[in-house]
């Protein structure tokens, strides 16, 4: 609890201060969405975005395996249940309203309007946003992002949150937290490159997805409280399932980062190169840390390693060179290595599956690194290393804002839910595990 309040205070402070410090974003800054867009549909771009959509889609069920494998075997079914129902719920809400709130119009730089609600004015054969793919395809791709982000969050509340409570939370959160964040960063809002007041870069969702999911996880973990010491088991019940989930995430990330440009072009090649190199180097770095620290490497460690590299490169992937990507990956592994240890041992928050440790801390480091390493050859708003101070300050501000906003709203939503329904298991239920206690369906028979 203490830590949570501390975090909240700090981030609100950072956010407020940095908003004043900020230079206005210049009008020339290119908007990601309109990168090489002409509004003329391009069949190759459509093909690639469709493949990328499929890959991102794969990440949601993969998270269930990754998370479930790390928990006790009594929590496998319930983790799966929360993940797939979560992705369906959030995706449908996204299609009906979230997409509109993110990408239609702009209200105060903060949220969109209802112009695209219920998929009205979302054509399947042209793009009103000036993309080279139909808006409907863009909605699908973005919907998968929303679904995956929701699934990431679930890791923090694992083994104690009731199914119905977490579903209700995700439904509200997707409208009140995720959609505004997507609008602010990608939809022309406050933090967006084009119309924003803060010069910041977030190519594939470092803030919208990872920092947001990480800090949301902290918020709900704080409201829920810790698991009983009798439930926590530090050994994954199944390394193979954890591992399979992790590698499907890895493969999916190629679509996650690669699809974010919505086009096949030179940028895509950079994105893929930086994404893969960062993750590979991060795995090596995490392994090295483990050898120094514990004398041996573990598969859970290596998976955490490449995931930390993937998280950190996400906002930067189109703006940095492969060499910078290697550096970002290596440092991300080190930062997250200690981040995870801190969250587990010191934070007082039971972030069951390292959601903040990996996605939060990795995402923050990635956003900062973007502010440092963004290359002037790859973007108009370079980072420190190419002499751009604006971006660096902007990134800090954006991080602070994201942390403050997502934490506050998520905390309030979860608290509010706790007033109307029971949000966590009784101790008996917790001990028996959600599989039996909530779904009546043990994973292995």
């Amino acid at each position, binding site marked *: 609890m203490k830590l949570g309040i501390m975090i909240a205070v700090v981030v609100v402070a950072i956010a407020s201060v940095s908003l004043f410090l900020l230079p206005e974003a210049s009008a020339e800054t290119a908007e990601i969405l309109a990168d090489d867009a002409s509004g003329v549909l391009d069949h190759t771009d459509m093909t690639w975005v469709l493949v990328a959509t499929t890959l991102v889609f794969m990440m949601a069920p993969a998270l269930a395996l990754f998370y479930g494998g790390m928990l006790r075997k009594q929590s496998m079914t319930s983790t799966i249940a929360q993940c797939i129902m979560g992705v369906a719920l959030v995706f449908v809400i996204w299609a009906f309203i979230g997409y509109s709130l993110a990408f239609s119009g702009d209200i105060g730089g903060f949220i969109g309007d209802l112009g695209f609600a219920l998929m009205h004015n979302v054509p399947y054969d042209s793009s009103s946003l000036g993309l080279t793919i139909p808006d409907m395809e863009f909605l699908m791709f973005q919907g998968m992002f929303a679904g995956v982000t929701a699934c990431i969050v679930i890791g923090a509340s694992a083994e104690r949150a009731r199914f119905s409570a977490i579903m209700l939370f995700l439904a509200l959160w997707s409208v009140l937290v995720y959609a505004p964040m997507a609008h602010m960063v990608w939809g022309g809002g406050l933090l967006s490159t084009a119309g924003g007041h803060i010069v910041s870069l977030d190519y594939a969702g470092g803030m919208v997805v990872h920092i947001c999911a990480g800090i949301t996880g902290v918020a709900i973990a704080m409201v829920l409280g810790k698991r009983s010491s*009798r439930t926590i*088991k530090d050994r994954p019940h199944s390394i193979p399932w954890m591992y399979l989930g992790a590698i499907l995430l890895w493969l999916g990330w190629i679509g996650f980062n690669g699809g974010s440009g919505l086009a096949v072009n030179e940028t895509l090649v950079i994105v893929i190169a930086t994404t893969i190199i960062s993750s590979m180097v991060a795995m090596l770095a995490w392994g090295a840390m483990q050898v120094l620290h514990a004398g041996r490497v573990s598969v859970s460690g290596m998976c955490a390693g490449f995931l930390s590299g993937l998280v950190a490169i996400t906002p930067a992937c189109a703006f940095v060179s492969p060499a910078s990507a290697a550096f970002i990956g290596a440092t991300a592994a080190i930062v997250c290595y200690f981040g995870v240890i801190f969250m587990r041992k010191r934070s007082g928050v039971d972030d069951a599956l390292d959601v903040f440790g990996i996605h939060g801390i990795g995402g923050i480091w990635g956003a900062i690194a973007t502010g440092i390493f963004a290359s002037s050859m790859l973007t108009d708003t370079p980072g420190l290393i190419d002499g751009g101070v604006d971006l660096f300050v902007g990134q800090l501000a954006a991080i602070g804002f994201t942390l403050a906003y997502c934490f506050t709203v998520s905390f309030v939503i979860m608290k509010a839910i706790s007033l109307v329904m029971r949000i966590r298991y009784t101790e*008996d239920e917790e001990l*028996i595990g959600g599989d*039996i*206690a909530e779904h009546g369906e043990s994973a292995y028979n």
Partner: protein
Amino acid sequence: MKMIVAIIRPERLQSVKDALRCNGIMGMTMIQVKGRGSQSGVNISTRTGIFRVDEIEKIMLEIVVEDDQKQQTIDIIKEAALTGHIGDGRIFVVPVEESIKVHDE
């Protein structure tokens, strides 16, 4: 000799193992089991009613000791396995007539 059959909570296994080792009781065999005790399980209530879970994961330990170690072994286990909640488990004592090593040194 006696075989001490102890059915304990999985999360207490490590402490029981450690406590036994500290007292020089090395040999033991561990079995994954499911059990129901005198309450015949735990009741869970859902929207449509109450159902009972009567297969709860436990660890069964079988430890063969000399007669004079029996009481000590039981006491160690009782202490190390205790959490103070229902379901902490049971210990049974079964007579053993002979104990043979496959590989006699």
